[in-house]
């Protein structure tokens, strides 16, 4: 594979020339020429364009031929994420009809998603039926932790994937069959970038920022913090050992999302969790009243 452009094929030689253009000669004699990162402004006032290829540069060594190409332009106007969004809408309707509060838990790896869920399963288990869809690239380790804490769980392994998609949730729901009126946590893959783009049909995204990560995370990963309804500032028990400016962290997250709720918690000591659970009960109540409205 070409290290510059990812072009595959059995290139026997790569010739690189100036201006970012390079040429591959494949085993069958086909030449392939590419330009990279090429911007120009000759599109009648359009913004800069990027081009992958200039394909009039294919040459065939054994049988030289030129065929004038007749093409037709077809307007598609298609949303690239339309399929994911449609499945997410189906998941959302499925949750609403069953009065299930589905929450998409997102953070960077190691912020404490699984520890928080374990604690919540033990604290709320008897009062609010709770199940979990666990997303990780590999292993069932987190799923086993949740099961050991006492909740029903389905583990999703994404392999090389860095985020969960709506279709995976649809399949997991078939396995998990969360009960009516329950709380469903979807623990996304630890990643502050990719999961922000993929709607799963959740009622809200809950983002965790742990105090060991630094105050500037919300500014560095604004998409995720903008998409979340609540930020949990986790591991507050470690604050005495860190130089972490809480006020700045809150100001930073409000800069990208003025309406986000912030609760300081420690999954270790339980600090702040009562407030967090109150909010979850409020949300569960609005899901139930929403379902009631739909029936009228």
């Amino acid at each position: 594979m070409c290290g510059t452009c990812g072009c595959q094929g059995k290139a026997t030689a790569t010739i690189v020339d100036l201006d970012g253009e390079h040429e591959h000669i494949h085993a069958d004699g086909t030449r392939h020429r590419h330009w990279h990162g090429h911007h120009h402004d000759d599109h009648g006032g359009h913004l800069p364009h990027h081009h992958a290829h200039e394909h009039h540069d294919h040459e065939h060594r054994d049988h030289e031929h030129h065929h004038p190409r007749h093409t037709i332009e077809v307007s598609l106007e298609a949303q690239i994420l339309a399929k994911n969004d449609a499945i997410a809408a189906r998941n959302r309707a499925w949750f609403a009809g069953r009065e299930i509060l589905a929450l998409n838990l997102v953070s960077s790896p190691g912020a404490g998603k699984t520890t928080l869920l374990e604690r919540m399963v033990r604290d709320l288990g008897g009062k609010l039926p709770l199940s979990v869809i666990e997303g990780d690239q590999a292993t069932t380790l987190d799923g086993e932790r949740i099961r050991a804490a006492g909740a029903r769980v389905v583990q999703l392994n994404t392999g090389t994937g860095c985020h969960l998609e709506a279709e995976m949730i649809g399949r997991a729901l078939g396995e998990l069959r969360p009960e009516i009126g329950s709380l469903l946590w979807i623990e996304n893959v630890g990643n502050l970038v990719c999961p922000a783009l993929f709607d799963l049909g959740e009622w809200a995204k809950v983002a965790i920022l742990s105090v060991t990560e630094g105050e500037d995370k919300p500014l560095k990963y604004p998409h995720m913090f903008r998409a979340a309804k609540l930020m949990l500032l986790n591991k507050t028990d470690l604050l005495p050992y860190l130089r972490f400016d809480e006020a700045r962290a809150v100001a930073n997250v409000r800069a990208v999302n003025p309406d986000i709720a912030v609760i300081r918690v420690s999954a270790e000591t339980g600090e702040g969790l009562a407030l967090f659970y109150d909010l979850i009960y409020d949300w569960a109540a609005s899901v139930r009243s929403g379902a009631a409205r739909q029936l009228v």
Partner: protein
Amino acid sequence: MHELSITRNIVAIVDEAARGRRVCRVMLQIGKLSGVMPDAVLFCFDIVAQGTALHGARLDIEEIEARARCDTCGGESSLPHLGASCPCGSRRLTLIQGEELKIRTIELEEAA
């Protein structure tokens, strides 16, 4: 690298729309605040397009500048990044463009 997943979506949508015809060119619109990097989509495109009607197609990406309307003063301004504020100082902004993730047009080879 959600761009790989995004690119698979692009190729699947266009491959279906082409109904067996060869695709010569695909024109996308990607908003600057969509969270998708055009260069990463270009990087993935050649690989994902292999074995489909898009093999060898040219991919053009038009980047869309972000603009927002201020919920406080009602003014419109460009938004260089999320977290930027309106010239009036307010951060309560509604994005009006810049989150596009769209396939605009495709160019198909006409049947001979």
